[in-house]
């Protein structure tokens, strides 16, 4: 008697014998080999054995057809789903909030160079300053608001980013104007613009905004030195922050004015690959 423990037959589910097993054994192939043959992935050195088995055993040919069926006619109703439109709620779920968190920014959404990290920190600090200023000095109209996908410029600012050529100003509130500085294509396959926000003819803030597939401009980086904000960031410091950020996301070089004019005229068509 063997010393190996025996399993109780009542505890193990017994699979009834496969009636094809003797046929397959006689033919010298396995069920899995036949399936792999039907799927076209059987190792070349076993193909001849399967072909010979099929010739000698018609039952196996019918079994082969079951495997072919489940990769052919059976799959078609499922494949038809591929050409149907995907519900909007699913696209929205996949896009998520569409706005990188500070953590994601930090972890390398943009190149993890120390200058950029310093810039992110400066921007975060500036945002806090800006928020404090907005509480005590509400602007005549909302400049930006936060939706589920990030900071979205107000309608007026959206329009200004969409239509104003670089170097020109558009007033978006009583004392506030936007002046796009340059336009470039971003690594995230979208058009981006760097702009200045000017309060009563003085540069007060700047930012980088990129245009999403939905045609909405979203602020990626913003500096926020506005009047009475306490620590005013010098213009050259703001420019440095935006320059560093721009370097992280630019794909190629910024557009010439004539190229930018074409782009505005043609409704910000995506760049050809």
């Amino acid at each position, binding site marked *: 008697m063997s010393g190996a423990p025996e399993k109780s037959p009542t505890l193990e*589910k*017994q*699979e*009834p*014998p*496969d*009636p*094809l097993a003797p*046929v397959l054994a006689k033919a010298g192939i396995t*069920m*899995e080999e*036949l*399936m*792999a043959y039907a*799927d076209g*992935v059987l190792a070349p050195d076993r193909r001849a054995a399967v072909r010979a088995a099929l010739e000698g055993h018609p*039952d196996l040919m*019918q*079994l082969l*057809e*079951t*495997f072919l*069926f*489940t*990769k052919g*006619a*059976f*799959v*078609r*109703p*499922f*494949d*038809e*789903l*591929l050409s*149907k439109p*995907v*519900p909007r*709620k*699913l*696209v929205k*779920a*996949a*896009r*998520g909030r*569409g706005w*990188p968190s500070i953590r*994601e920014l930090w*972890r*390398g*959404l943009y190149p993890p160079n120390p200058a950029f990290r310093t810039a992110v920190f400066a921007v975060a600090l500036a945002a806090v300053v800006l928020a404090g200023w907005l509480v005590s000095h509400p602007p005549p109209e909302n400049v930006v608001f936060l939706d589920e996908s990030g900071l979205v410029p107000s309608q007026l600012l959206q329009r200004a980013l969409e239509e104003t050529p670089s170097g020109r100003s558009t007033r978006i509130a009583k004392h506030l104007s936007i002046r796009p500085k340059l336009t470039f294509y971003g690594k*995230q*396959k979208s058009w981006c613009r760097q702009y200045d926000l000017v309060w009563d003819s003085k540069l007060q803030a700047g930012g980088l905004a990129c245009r999403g597939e939905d045609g909405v401009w979203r602020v990626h980086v913003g500096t926020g030195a506005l009047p009475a904000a306490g620590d005013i960031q010098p213009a050259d410091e703001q420019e440095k922050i935006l320059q560093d950020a721009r370097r992280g996301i630019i794909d190629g070089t910024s557009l010439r004015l004539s190229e930018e004019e074409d782009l505005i005229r043609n409704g910000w068509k995506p760049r050809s690959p």
Partner: protein
Amino acid sequence: MTDEFRTRMVELLPRLRRFAVALTGDLDQADDLVQETCARALSRVEQWQPGTRLDSWMYRIAQNLWLDRARARKVRGEQVDVEAAEALAGPDGREVMESRLTLDAVSAAMAHLPNEQRVLIALVCIDGLSYKEAAEITETPIGTVMSRLARARRELHERLEGPLPEGISVRGRSSRSPTSKSGSSA
């Protein structure tokens, strides 16, 4: 990485939806599963290794979510898959088949398979992944994948196209009742 990740996830949606329909047998349930899968993926984006296949990673998430749901339903004693499928397609998928197979008919046949087999059919037959890729996603040895797959394919053919000649029918030797739903057999 996150924007690129999201873009790729949007591109993957049609295939992910097809995979979910194959598992659930129902478009509404499939959409819920896809939605939940996207939310789970986004919440764990740092676990995905850039350079590896996003589709395999997403399928694994969808599969696990669906299996969790199926287990919870089993605990509650529900048998909704087979019952719902039969309501759509009749007790036998063949009864609604006319000149071609419909989604209801193939879903009804799928509903009779054990969950593990359904996942493999969805991955290999419907999505076209290799046995090895399916083995990695389901964390199952490749030999087990192939034997489960062969058995599932024979059963589907039999339910949709009629039994094979006597002696090689897969249903004739099954120890399960034809309408019972198993979540564990190989």
